[in-house]
Each structure stands twice: as C-alpha cells, then as structure tokens.
C-alpha cells in the first residue's frame, strides 16, 4: 500500500534504531508521544523493542476516547435512552465505561445505538429516518472536529433538522500545557500529533519550544516516521537546538489546512472548561457548538443529567499520563483496575499506558533478560520463571518464514 509500506521497512528500521542507539549515549531519554495513534503504532509494530533501554517513550494524553470523563459517557447513555432517539457514535466509544455500563450495555438494554464510520453516516441516517432524532456523539481532537463541522453545515444547508451533535471535541494544546506545567515532569521532548497538525499546522506547538524549552517534532503514523522523529529530537538536543520540526511533510503544511480552520471557527467556540479523565478540569480545552447551531446541539435540545462522576480516588492516571509514575506504581493497577474492569483512562483503551503494561509488561521483562543472555552476561541470582520467556524470544526469531 503506497505511502504506508515504504515506511514499514524493517531494514531501514534497524539502521535507524542503530543510529538512535549510537547517539543515545548514556543519557536516559524520555520522549512523550502526545497522540494515541502513535501509541498504537508503537505497540502494533513493537517499536520499543528496537529502541535501546535508555530511550523511553512516554504515552501521552492524546486518545480522545480515553479522556472522555465518565459523566459525559453517562450523559450520552441517558440521551441514547430517550424515546425516538437513534444514537450514533464511532466504534471506539462503544466499550468505554460510564459509571453504570457502556453504550454497548445501553444497546443491550434496548437503546438504538449504532456505530458509524463517519459523521456523514449519521447525517444519512437522519435523512432516512425523518421521524427520529438522530444524535451523533462527537469525539476527537482537531483532526476530527472539521468533519463534524462540515456535516452540521451540510445538515443546515439541506434543512435536515433531526440531526443533533453531542459535542465532546477537544483541543490538544491545553492538555499539553497541563502536562508541561506539572512540577515533577521530566521529558526531553515531544513527538507532535501528525494528524492534528494537518488541520492546525505546526505553529501552535511553538509555545512548547519557546516557553518550556522542549523540542517538538511533528511525526507521521508509520513506524519509521516515529523512529525518525525520535532521532530528530535527539539531534536537536545534541545540537543545542529547540524547535518545532515537521517530519511529516508529506501531509502536514506548516500552516495546516486553512479551510478546515475556517470551518471550525464557523461552527465551534471554545468551552470555558472541560473535564479530562485522569487530568481533571482544563480551561478552554474543548469545543462547543456556536449559538447559531443551538437547534442541533444535543446538550441544549435534550435534558442531559450532566452529573460529574469523580475519577476514583485511588486512580493515579494523571501521574501515569505525565510520565511521573510507572503504571505498576499506581495503587489500583492490576488489582481493582484491569483491562476487563478498567477504572482509569490509561486502562480503558488497549493503547493506554496501563493496559499495554498489563498485557506486555511481564513479557517485555523476559525479553530484556534475553538480551542479557544474548550479550553473554548473566545477571546473578536469576531464579524465577520469567527467564523462560527469553527462550521464547530467541526461538521466535528462528521461525522459518514462508514467503507467499
């Protein structure tokens, strides 16, 4: 697949990884990928395996699904249960737990909840069901918000009055600020969100370099993009530079997409504050519909409970998101909070830092042990079961590969 396979080349990856290892020196690097899409790529391709142990990727807050607070999920479920409502949302959201179940559970309980691939699909459903109220539960950062905006403009233009948007669009800069303001933060730089940047451009990230003195490299979503981004951050630091660089030039213009920004401004305004699961209230961090679109605003048309559900006290997602705590150091990790019964945002999505650690942690340590064995050094007193995993890794490499 063009513009994808070229950026998944294993030989180039090895070369780049070797260069990163060579330049990492003895410094412990902590680089945050802001975007959940990057986290997904990192796990899908096993990128952390290629990096030396002292280059650590910290998984940031940029998963628009995981950051939706429980109260907002509850509000969505309440709207879904209203008579005459067809509730539409992206597949990602269906399993996110509210305080009493998910939308999937609401569907099981009789609500008409439908998964859509695009807000335009919700518009189509509204056209086909003029006697129903079709609600689109909008989530996503600046990447996704223009599509909601264009859909609403189209609904208005065509006089489709039974489409309502429950707006949970959020913006990326405020949570980055919140993380950067954290006193115990230790990050060397940021991998910037490539697809948000197709819309907003790379300039909005200049505050990170100017105010906080941390380099930012806006990167793409293929594994080589991420490795190259890591390398570019290291180069900046080693050369004493601190800039916003654009690794993802093939789709990101420095000024973003002016048309998309114009559409955003026409439909949305900033909310005074919005709650983020794990990070708490962040001012001006989300979008709401402008008054001209009040007739399409689900929050105004329906009576939503709007009850705030506090993050469980013991949950330390905020610290994990900032890279201050490791997942296993959280008080509820692996006991009250597991992938089957998640409490905090980091466990909700399989891309969350905690879910990933829960699933991969034990194995990655076994793998580390194998590296030691491979390099001929044996840690003393190695007496527990995980050592067998080391064998797994070695054998894995020896699998006969059948070419198609």
């Amino acid at each position: 697949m063009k513009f994808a396979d070229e950026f998944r080349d294993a030989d180039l990856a090895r070369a780049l990884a070797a260069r990163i290892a060579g330049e990492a020196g003895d410094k412990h690097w902590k680089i945050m990928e802001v975007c959940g899409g990057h986290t997904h790529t990192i796990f899908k391709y096993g990128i952390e395996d290629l990096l030396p142990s002292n280059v650590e990727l910290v998984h940031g807050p940029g998963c628009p699904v995981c950051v939706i607070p429980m109260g907002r999920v509850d509000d969505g479920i309440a709207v879904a249960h209203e008579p005459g409502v067809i509730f539409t949302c992206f597949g990602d959201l269906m399993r996110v737990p509210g305080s009493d179940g998910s939308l999937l559970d609401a569907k099981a309980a009789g609500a008409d909840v439908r998964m859509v691939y695009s807000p335009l699909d919700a518009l189509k459903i509204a056209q086909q069901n003029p006697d129903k109220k079709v609600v689109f539960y909008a989530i996503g950062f600046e990447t996704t918000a223009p599509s909601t905006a264009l859909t609403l403009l189209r609904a208005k233009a065509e006089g489709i009055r039974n489409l309502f948007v429950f707006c949970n669009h959020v913006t990326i800069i405020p949570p980055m600020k919140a993380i950067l303001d954290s006193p115990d933060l230790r990050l060397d730089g940021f991998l910037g969100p490539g697809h948000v940047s197709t819309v907003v451009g790379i300039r909005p990230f200049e505050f990170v370099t100017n105010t906080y003195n941390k380099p930012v490299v806006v990167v793409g979503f293929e594994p080589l993009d991420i490795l190259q981004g890591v390398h570019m951050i290291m180069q900046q630091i080693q050369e004493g530079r601190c800039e916003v660089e654009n690794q993802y030039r093939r789709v990101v213009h420095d000024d973003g997409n002016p048309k998309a920004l114009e559409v955003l401004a026409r439909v949305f305004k900033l909310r005074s504050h919005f709650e983020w699961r794990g990070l708490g209230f962040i001012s001006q961090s989300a979008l709401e519909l402008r008054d001209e679109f009040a007739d399409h605003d689900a929050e105004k048309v329906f009576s939503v409970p709007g009850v705030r559900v506090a993050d469980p006290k013991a949950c330390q997602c905020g610290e994990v998101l900032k890279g201050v705590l490791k997942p296993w150091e959280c008080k509820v990790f692996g006991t009250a909070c597991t992938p089957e019964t998640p409490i905090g945002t980091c466990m909700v999505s399989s891309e969350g830092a905690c879910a990933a650690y829960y699933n991969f942690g034990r194995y990655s340590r076994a793998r580390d042990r194998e590296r030691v064995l491979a390099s001929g050094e044996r840690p003393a007193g190695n007496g527990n079961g995980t050592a067998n995993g080391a064998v797994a890794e070695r054998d894995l490499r020896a699998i006969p590969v059948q070419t198609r």
Partner: protein
Amino acid sequence: MTETVVEPGSGAAINAASARISDPEQRVLERIAEIRKRKPMLREDAITMSHGAGGKASHTLVTALFGEILSNPVLDQLGDQAVLALPGVHNMGLAVTTDSFVVSPLFFPGGDIGELAVNGTINDLAVGGATPLGISAAFILEEGLDVATLRRVVESMRRAADRAGVNVVTGDTKVVPRGKADQLFITTTGVGVVALPQRIAIHRVVPGDVVVLSGAMGDHGSTVMLARGDVDLEADNLRSDTMALHGLTAALLADGIDVHFMRDATRGGVATVLNEIAQAAGMAVAIDEASLPVHDEVRGVAEILGIDPLYIANEGKLVAIVAKEDALRAVDLMRSRPEGGEAAVIGEVLADPEGMVFMHTGFGGTRVVDMLIGDPLPRIC
C-alpha cells in the same frame, strides 16, 4: 550485580538498569500472571453483542455459564465437537457438533447463510479428524419471510451438501412473529465418526510444533461487514471464503502427516484460535507477521477501519499444529488443493510463557497478540 531482575537494555547498561527494578514491580507482574490463569468470571448483567463475537467475552460466557452449569466429562473438553463412545465399538467414536447461523445479510458475495451452515458444520467435524456422515438443520423463520428467499437459501444448502458429499438428513421448522427474528436463523447439528484413540487432540501439542494456516485471513468477515452497508465501503474482488474443509483434513491425515491439533478460525479470527490453543495446551505460540497470508482487499478494509485481519472471521480456513518434521509437507499438500492454495507456515509452539501468543512484527519488533475483546469495532483513533 546481585539483583535478580534485569531492566531493558544491552551490555552493561542492563546491569546498571537492573538495580532500578525493585521487587514491588516483580510482585505486581507475578500477580497479573496469576490473575490471568484464573477461571474467567461472567460480570455482565445482560448479554451484549460482545458475547457473540467469538472473543474473550464469548469465551467467558461459555466457560463460566454453560460449562459451569452443564459440566460433564465430554463437555468439559470444550472442543469444536464432542466425541461419544459407541457401545461395543473400541476403535471408533461418534463425533457430534452443533452450530447456529444468524448472519445478516443472508446473501453476500461468495456465499449465503445456507452454504455457511453446511460448510461450517462440516468444518467443525473435520478439524477434529472426524469423517462427516450427515447434517440436521433446524430453521427459525420470521413471519412474512419471502418463500423465494427461503427457497434460495435451501437450494444453496443442497448444492453445498452435494459438493461436500454430506446430506442434510433431518430437520425442523418453527415460525416466530414478525420482529422476533431477523428473516431466518439456521441451527445445524453434524454427526461423524472418528478413529479412536483420536489423532487430533490438544494434549498432543508439544513445544517445537509448527503452526500452519490454510490460507488468507479475514475474507469472510470483511465481506459480510461490507455487505451490511454500515461502513459504506465497496470492494469488487472481495468474497467470503466459505468452504468445506473435510477433504483437506482427510488428505492431511491420509498422507500420514503428523497433525497434532486443528481448529477452524471462524469468529474472533486466527488470533483468537491461537490464543485458545495456547491456553488449552498451556504453552506459547509465536507467529511471524511477514508470513501471514492476507489479501489486498482485506488489508485495505483493515487499514481503513483500523482493525486487524488477525481478528476478522473466516469460514474456510483452519489452523493446524503440525509436528515440526512434517510441517513443510503439510503446507505443500495444502497448497496442492483448492482449499489451501495460499497455505503458509505462520509460527511455532513454544513451552513458555504459558497461554500467550506473540508476533514477530514485519518491522522487527515483537508484540503480544491477545484474544479479541468484544467485537472488532472500527476505530477512528
């Protein structure tokens, strides 16, 4: 360095880093490993679509509810089929399997619900090494269903049965009021005979065995997803792979290939089957991403919707665990037949870590391949 555990890295960095790992982390990891081994608990108050998707939730429902209440020595094996002893016969057992078909739409490129019902039932017998003898089919029909539609489905069953050489020998029909079913549902039972002691059994899986997949993944699930129309994608060359596999399995066994275990990779996809095998055998399975056969259209659908072909359903593909020395012969034989033209060695069985599936990615990393959790929902992020 006297620490017991080692943190990521290479060379002396590891020794330095090892000191950083404190015992609490080790304890947390060990606790997780323990929890994973526990019997799953059914926590939900109501059945959701996840319980039917073939992944973790389905698995939990089957083991924690049906397995628990109906427990008996045969059921407890939780195989695709049950093998019953025939009084007075020692070298032969009766293989029984049952399956329901509720696909929407009823007709899709490459097949329909009737063909699925026949092939699916045969496959559940075939992967246990049984020779199918006959199929029973029960129909639940919705009031108002077009007779022409029903006729088309049943004629398709007839053709599939003729092709497979296995007759539909008995059946039943019920009609429910409009809205109480979605057009028509089919429940089948398949009966066959299997040689005893069984050659195909999970306890025969040993470390070093090779994992063979009989062809490309995800054709059926992608086809049905597109045919449903929800995602508005079109693919001219995408077809369901529905196919009877008993000819293929019989050929493997007749050729003396030492197959230790087989399972057809239906709902939940190849990833789920591999996890089931790893858990049932108490071993690990390691697969190689580069070796996984996937058609371009399925890759296209998967990329667009953000899902993984490893989790997409198949209706004519099996995973075979084969003795190492016979693996290439098994692949050659599969490839010589229409059912297995794209067969490939995709991985191997390892002793540890128990119950886990890994993938060596084409990019040079590794990752854990978990069971499907819930439905494979398209994602945007």
